[in-house]
């Protein structure tokens, strides 16, 4: 008869427990801060970092979006946390933007990668339009990028593209703000699958995929 020992926790479980379990009093300051980023955020961040190879990941805390509602004076028990990072390749191209690039012989690989915001959620959570609108109002529009990649003959065309993109952003011709909705599967067997959906502000026509 052999004695059974519990399996050693996975790297992800170790990471999450190290973040969410109370830490000794001498690091209380750090603990209270990390308490605000619950396990969910770190699970999604971990998935982005190691499965999807995102880089320069950051965690952002949003101001309570429900401050506009008069009866809801109590602080939101679940403050909204966003993750931002740079994906290894372009995730979303508006169909009109794609046409613009095609007309000028530019490829998506020629463009600078953009920082994208990710909203971590878990299956079974309920959301409302008010909260979603709050999230969209709470993060900034993607910052502008400067041309610092030497791509030879395409430099002029790229410059033209970036200039036009500024205009398109202002008029929302190529869509407005967008973020990635990450949903973790914790019910249904809880296999920790994370699915990603692009959510955009306003009616943005679908891609021809």
């Amino acid at each position, binding site marked *: 008869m052999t004695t059974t020992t519990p399996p050693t926790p996975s790297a992800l479980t170790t990471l999450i427990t190290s973040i969410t379990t109370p830490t000794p009093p001498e690091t209380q300051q750090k603990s209270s801060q990390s308490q605000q980023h619950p396990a969910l955020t770190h699970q999604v961040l971990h998935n982005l970092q190691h499965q*999807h190879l995102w880089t320069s990941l950051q965690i952002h805390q949003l101001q309570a979006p429900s401050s*506009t*509602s*008069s*009866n*809801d004076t109590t602080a939101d028990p679940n403050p909204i946390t966003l993750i931002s990072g740079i994906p290894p390749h372009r*995730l*979303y191209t508006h169909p009109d933007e794609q046409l613009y690039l095609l007309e000028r012989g530019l490829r998506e690989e020629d463009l600078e990668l953009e920082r994208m915001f990710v909203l971590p*959620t*878990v*299956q*079974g*959570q*309920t*959301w*409302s*339009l*008010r909260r*979603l*609108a709050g999230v*969209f109002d709470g993060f900034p529009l993607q910052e502008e990028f400067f041309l610092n990649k030497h791509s030879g003959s395409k430099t002029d065309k790229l410059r033209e593209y970036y200039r036009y993109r500024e205009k398109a952003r202002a008029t929302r011709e190529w869509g407005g703000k967008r973020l*990635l*909705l990450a*949903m973790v599967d914790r019910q249904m067997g809880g296999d920790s699958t994370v*699915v*990603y*959906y*692009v*959510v*955009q*502000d*306003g*009616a*943005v*026509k*679908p*891609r*021809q*995929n």
Partner: protein
Amino acid sequence: MESDPILLPIPISYIAGSYFLFSIDAVTYLRREHHICGVLSGTLPQIPQQNVFLGLPLKLMPEEARLLVEKGVACIVDEVNAQRAGMRALAADDRRKYLRELEAQGAHAMRLQTSRKELQREEALRKVQAKKAAAAAKKAGADAAPDAAGATAGSDEPAATENPSRRASTTTTNSEIHAPYGTTMGITPATSHPPLPYSPATSTTLPPPAVPPSYPLFAHLHADGYYLSPGLRFGCQYLAYPGDPLRFHSHFLVVAADWDEELDLMALVAGGRLGTGVKKGFLIGGAEHTRADDAGIMGEPESVRTFSVEWAGM
């Protein structure tokens, strides 16, 4: 062919809880000018199972009817009462006159049909004759060397025989129409406003239709130039087309939600995945409530916020 300008407001018939349009002019006008398509719902009275191609009347969603009323383009008529009152008010003379008119129209339609049949018959006869002539010419050509004069004579022959036959046939058609046993076609007009007045009496007009809470989103998208149709086929509330549905595929599967309605995220994911699967976007939206206490009031179309969801492919 430019038809008569449409008289506004267009009467929308309210019958048994649904909104119908019976005039083809009104249907084309609303589709062309106001992006309102509705759904054709009429079948043949004798063959109601034939429902691949439907015809008049056009059934409107309550949202569509409401939008038209709010634009001042249409008004809602309690059709049952309007018909009853209208028929009661119709004088016996008018009724007889109307019946005579219908009969005249039926006779005209019959005349058109028989003359078309006559023409078809003549056409067929001429073809047979031409074939016979060609065969004869060939035979003649086989007997002797063919000459140009013979060929032209052959081709002239049917034309020469054609004229008397036509004259004969037209006389027979005329005699058919005036024949005592000649039947006139039964005419069933789609609209009832030659005998009844076009503009309904104020007693039979109804208030604007009651609409579901998704109306602000409907009006918002309609104002943005989208054509909206019922979304049952794709498991959503509305389908939003960027232009006329006959020319475009739809862009969005639209679902409306209340501003504070608790949404299961699974619905968002399911909608996003379904939309991406059929090359559309999933659009969820609703009117923004700036204050919590106006939750019961229907929002304005201008305050609607929408979000489009697509699968990220990762």
